[in-house]
């Protein structure tokens, strides 16, 4: 009983509102890159991942690694709305003794499959989990969400070599290609274009989609799963701050603090 595309779009709105509320309440946090990932997160958690929220440690579940760990608000919102923990817990984000740390902590939060914090490190972990599944004859898949800013880290490209070298087809990377990092345009800073060609040159199967179009995302994940003998990457072209017009495409909303006024205005746009 998977949600319809229209339902997925509605859930994405709920996630966006949760993100804003969490960041307002916390007094800090990363709004822009959480909003850009909303549809990706919703399509994965509501339609793609084989998971049992009432059994977070279920051995055969699909895994998700949030390599762009600053988008933790979007992930926590998805986990709460899926029932991994109480939605009210979202208000404890970034607070002392909270299970919802600034970046994902597998030892504290039900539903988090890997502790990640530093940029560029998640894809290696995803490869390791998938290699282990392969060795153990397990069929689960591992999804890893990358930011395009963190593609500037060298370790990502070491991991890209490893994924192809070991033909880790159980891994599906997703690049939240919102084009902006905290410092500005990722293409001006590091020249990522042509990004699809780079991944192809590393022997990955590439699907490039509109990362806010749930139908395209669903099709891309299906294509990735049916691709054998090599890992896949979904390049999801997104807009940073998506859903809140005055935040869209603006680098300053990477991690700017929300005021009550800004929050009200943003929530109106998402009503």
């Amino acid at each position, binding site marked *: 009983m998977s949600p319809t595309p229209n339902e997925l779009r509605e859930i994405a709105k709920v996630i966006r509102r949760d993100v804003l509320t969490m960041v307002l309440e916390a007094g800090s946090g990363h709004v822009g890159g959480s909003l850009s990932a909303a549809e990706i997160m919703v399509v994965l958690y509501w339609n793609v991942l084989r998971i049992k929220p009432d059994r977070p440690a279920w051995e055969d579940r699909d895994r998700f690694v949030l390599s762009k760990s600053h988008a933790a608000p979007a992930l926590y919102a998805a986990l709460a709305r899926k029932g991994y923990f109480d939605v009210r817990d979202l208000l404890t984000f970034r607070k002392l003794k909270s299970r919802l740390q600034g970046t994902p*902590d*597998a*030892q504290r939060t039900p539903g988090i499959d*890997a*502790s*990640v*914090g*530093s940029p560029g*490190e*998640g*894809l*290696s*972990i*995803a*490869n*390791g*989990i*998938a*290699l*282990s*599944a392969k*060795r*153990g004859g397990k069929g689960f898949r591992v999804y890893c969400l990358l930011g395009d800013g963190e593609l500037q880290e*060298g*370790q990502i490209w*070491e*991991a890209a*070599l*490893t994924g192809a070298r*070991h033909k880790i087809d159980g891994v599906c990377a997703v690049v939240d290609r919102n084009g902006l990092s905290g410092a500005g345009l990722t293409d001006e800073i590091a020249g990522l274009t042509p990004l699809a060609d780079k991944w192809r040159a590393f022997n990955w199967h590439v699907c490039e989609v509109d990362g806010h179009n749930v139908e395209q995302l669903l099709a891309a994940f299906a294509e990735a799963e049916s691709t054998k003998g090599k890992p896949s990457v979904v390049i999801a072209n997104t807009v940073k701050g998506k859903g809140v017009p005055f935040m869209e495409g603006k680098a300053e909303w990477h991690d700017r603090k929300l005021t009550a006024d800004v929050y009200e205005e943003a929530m109106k746009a998402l009503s």
Partner: protein
Amino acid sequence: MVEMSLADVHHRVVETEATVRGYERGLVELAERGTDMIVMDADLGASSGTTEFRRHFPDRFIEFGLAEQDMLGVAAGLAQSGHVVFVTAHGMLAAANAWDVIRSTICHAGLKVIVAGVDAGFSSGGDGCARQSLEDIAVMRALPGMTVIVPTDAVEARKVTLAAARIPGPVYVRYATSRTPVVTTDMTPFAIGQGAVYRQGEDATVMACGVMVYEALKAARQLEDQSLSVRVVSCPTVKPLDRAIVNRAAVETGAIVTVEEGSTIGGLGGAVAEALAQSARPTPMRIMGIEDRFGESGDHEQLLGYFGLTAREIGASVREVVTRKKAIAAGQDTGVPE
């Protein structure tokens, strides 16, 4: 406390072997016992100690090439699925190049990954400073939950490898690639977190790890001729430190010299000093090692001599701390020497 007496190291012909050979034997032994393990290597070739393992158990071995950060990340992924993962890399490339991966993805998650830092200390000799591992102990010690071990010799290195596989969290072990004296035997007890008294003494204690244990024993033998009774304590586990053995040395001998083949900042000496400074009995101390310098090319033994890590220099340090101990007892302490 483990007590033992060694053959007179001064007079017997000393057998030598690289501690990395103990790693090699330990890995094969673990696999033969049926351990669910995976061994990785970062392009170290024959020097890394993984040769025998990869020959006998190719399906449990992954050659990563020169990609230490990715290798440690993959190790985190494998470890969280329950495998015992041994990651083999040049000491500083593991400890420093991949430090944040070890910190953020392995230690923070409390994962059981054994990092084998090869080319310990000056053991890569002629390669020069970039390839020598002198700061690895300091940076690994700083990581929460990390166990740090410097095997005394090749015989102990095997035991360390076996024991490391039983530690629930992350471990860093440094192994030397050039031959060093073998001072322990298969019968010598080894336990993680425990030091061992290799020679009893009352006037001062030398605490050492790795190849310096042998030099410390030689120094104690030489000082005996000068009527100084020196205790020698081997401290292979730098973290967690055996505080009991440190405190006993302070109380019973009143003067301590530490010696290690690594930086004097943050290593075994640092650990002992931190423990003593906060104990009931702060004790005159001398920390021997590489003093805020880089290494340079030379052969292993030459470099130890050049950097003052010899029995003779240890002897001089012991005389110095004993003099200070006596001055303090007589109320004439002059403070830290210039």
